[in-house]
């Protein structure tokens, strides 16, 4: 029969529908369908991973590794792109110990590696010259800087031979018999000139009081020009001395014969090719041998390009600062939002459930706090209580719980009229119990949505505070990077790599949380869907 067949078909279809359809979608199933929400979640996940693995991702310590390169060095990859950053030098750092040097011993000189604690040094023992006293007085005539006295700076390298001859020991009979002991190290330099370089090492001289020790550090350019960076003429013993040549020092400028306003690197690093660092030592000692202990020579050309994102004004790695900033941002956002939600929920629950005077007083406090201009009060309180990350979190929480309190109170007002609350009340449950185990669980989704939306605003407010100079000076936050770039010349140098990364990191993080918050809100309050 046609009719009965049809009814049975219908019944079957209805049964099938009943067996599949009625299960309501879980929150997660609904959330998965929101592309915006999933994108937000993905972004946040990336940030969380970066925060967790910060020590692996970041090559340097964000706060303590300073002078990794020149101040405001550009990202390393920009030197490959051409334009004004083409061919700028990266940081070159040599630590020259016994194994690195190519040693040219003078006759009779004994050189051996020397270890003290963690330092790998070199010990040079130079035998006595054993000259007659009258000859040493001759030496004293030429005493004034034997090397520089005969050294002519020749910036154009017109005569290489004459330079070579100058390397030979100075005038004065005492040393005539012996060559300088030379330590050479060559390196290839194929970049534009740097802005600064420095060389330093520590040394001790163990010598009789009448001995004179000569030491000098030179840089020899590919075309053979010799520049004396540092030298000393020491009498007798010298303990724990430090040799330092720095392109920023006036000392070096006068030594190179250039004016105060010129850059030493203009003359010293004008060429490309094989440079040689040369350390030389010699002594005049009439009676006893002289022992010189050299610690490794640290020679650094401060790079004008560095790492993934360059450096800040202190030569600190910006990529590391950015990566560690992720940790701080997430920690601040989560903890401030969490505290705010805890305060707001408690106040809202109590005000809504108890009502009466309690409600009135609490809500008036909420109103007053809402009327306080947040930024000015945070600035004043932040400065008064001291710039610490803990204070910032507490202050952020204290001035952002009011909205949550209002929402939770409204929800509580409607929930407390429900039958299940009535039932609990009539069976003798106390107010605290009802609030915690009957009303609170029903406000959880609402609280969650608010927690998510509070996080970005806490992060942004903290960033603004740091940017205004009220952040914790010991913590590498994104706001602080932005502040540094504003304060220490990032703008005049047009160092976009200093400004853009922390700003974009902030933007994407808060955008992600807003995406998540919006999606959660759409699921919890379907009315929103129509409006936006």
């Amino acid at each position, binding site marked *: 029969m046609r009719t009965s067949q049809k009814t049975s078909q219908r019944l079957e279809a209805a049964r099938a529908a009943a067996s599949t359809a009625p299960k309501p979608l879980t929150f997660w199933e609904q959330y998965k369908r929101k592309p915006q929400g999933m994108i937000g979640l993905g972004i946040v996940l990336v940030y969380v991973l970066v925060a967790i693995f910060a020590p692996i991702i970041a090559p340097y310590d964000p706060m303590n590794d300073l002078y990794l390169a020149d101040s405001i060095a550009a990202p390393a990859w920009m030197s490959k792109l051409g334009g004004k950053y083409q061919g700028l030098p990266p940081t070159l750092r040599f630590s020259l110990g016994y194994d690195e040097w190519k040693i040219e011993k003078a006759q009779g000189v004994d050189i051996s590696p020397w270890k003290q604690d963690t330092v790998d040094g070199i010990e040079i023992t130079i035998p006595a010259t054993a000259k007659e006293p009258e000859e040493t007085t001759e030496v004293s005539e030429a005493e004034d800087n034997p090397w520089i006295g005969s050294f002519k700076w020749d910036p154009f390298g017109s005569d290489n031979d004459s330079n070579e001859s100058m390397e030979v020991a100075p005038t004065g009979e005492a040393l005539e018999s012996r060559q300088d002991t030379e330590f050479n190290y060559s390196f290839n330099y194929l970049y534009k000139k740097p802005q600064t370089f420095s060389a330093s090492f520590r040394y001790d001289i163990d010598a009789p009081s009448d001995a004179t020790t000569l030491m000098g550090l030179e840089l020899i350019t590919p075309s053979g020009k010799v520049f004396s960076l540092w030298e000393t003429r020491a009498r007798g013993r010298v303990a724990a001395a430090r040799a330092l040549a720095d392109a920023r020092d006036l000392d070096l400028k006068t030594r190179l014969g250039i004016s105060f306003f010129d850059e030493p690197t203009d003359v010293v690093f004008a060429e490309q090719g094989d440079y040689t660092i040369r350390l030389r030592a010699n002594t005049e000692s009439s009676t006893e041998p002289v022992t010189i202990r050299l610690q490794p020579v640290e020679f650094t050309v401060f790079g004008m390009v560095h790492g993934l994102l360059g450096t800040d004004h202190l030569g600190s790695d910006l990529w590391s600062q950015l990566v560690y900033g992720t940790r701080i941002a997430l920690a601040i956002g989560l903890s401030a939002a969490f505290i705010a939600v805890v305060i707001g929920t408690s106040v809202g629950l109590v005000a809504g459930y108890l009502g009466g005077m309690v409600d009135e007083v609490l809500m008036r406090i909420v109103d007053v706090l809402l009327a306080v201009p947040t930024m000015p009060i945070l600035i004043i309180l932040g400065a008064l209580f001291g710039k610490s990350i803990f204070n910032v979190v507490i202050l952020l929480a204290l001035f952002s719980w009011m909205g949550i309190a209002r929402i939770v109170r*409204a929800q509580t007002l409607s929930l407390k009229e429900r039958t299940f609350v009535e039932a609990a009340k009539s069976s003798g449950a106390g107010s605290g119990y009802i609030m915690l185990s009957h009303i609170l669980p029903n406000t959880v989704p609402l609280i969650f949505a608010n927690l998510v939306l509070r996080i970005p605003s806490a992060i942004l407010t903290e960033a603004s505070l740091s940017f205004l100079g009220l952040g914790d000076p010991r913590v590498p936050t994104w706001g602080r990077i932005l502040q540094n770039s504003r304060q220490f010349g990032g703008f005049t140098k047009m160092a976009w790599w200093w400004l853009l990364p922390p700003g974009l990191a902030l933007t994407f993080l808060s955008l992600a949380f807003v995406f998540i918050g919006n999606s959660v809100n759409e699921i919890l309050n379907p009315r929103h869907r129509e409006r936006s």
Partner: protein
Amino acid sequence: MGFRSYLFKRLFYAIIVLFVILTFNFVLFRVMPGDPEKMIIDPNFTPEAKMELRRQYGLDDPIMTQYVNYLKSLLRFDLGLSFSTRRPVWTELKERLPNTLVLFVVTFIGTATMGISLGVYAAANRERFAERFVVGSGLFAHAVPGFFIQLLLLLLFGYYWPILPIHGTMSAPPPDGGFALFLDRLWHLILPAGSNVIIGFGSWALYTRNTMLEALSQDYIITARAKGIAKGDILYHHALRSVLPPIVTLIFMSLPGAVSGAVITESIFSWHGVGRYLLDATLKMDYPAAQGAFYLIALSVIISNLLADIAYGLVDPRIRVGAGGQG
């Protein structure tokens, strides 16, 4: 409850808030962190001068007398002397207030014009680029740190293409002549005010669009449409008229936020205003100056809140009747 009693309630409430903030201010700067002397008297003074100042400031009086004197002096706008300049704080604030107001008014006019017109346009042209743009810019305004946008604009137009002045309210030697000076000031306003507009218009546009859409779905609009009234007439005469009240309220409600933003904007563009004064004074530990600036800012926020309440009551009769309901 009539409008008058609503008004009185709001006024009373504003006074309470002011009172609370002032008390808070008093407690904060005098009692909380250690010795009040350090807060009020410059530590560099000699002991005799300190004693004299203690007497002058009445620091040896009982705390209640101090409190009453403090309130009295605030009513007379006697905000004390700045540590760093030795000038009366109120005099310094008076110099800066016009700058802050000018920046605020220009920003405000720009934001409101752009936001409201875009919002209306988006509501009238649904499912087009305009609407997507408005929704996007609303999101942008909510999520992007404003000071970052300002720094970016500063870097672009102040340094990469140095076409706009990067700091101050006017050129260093101000140009002669009233009109030239006016143009110069306007020139300096472009970057701070313009960036403020870029940051702020999105939320206005989104709000306007949402209220417009809500209004457009009301019965009387459908009736009007059924009567055959032209689309433009419905939009501008019926719908827009009904959404103006909430927008007017929004205008006043946005004032406190504008004050907070002023601190950052003024410090980025070195604007000679009250917000930057507050920040500089705070960072310099110039307590009387910081306290004075905060007082002025709090006062302006409270007044604008009061104005918002009044405007709200004026445009929405339901508030007058059912006031005091759920927050």
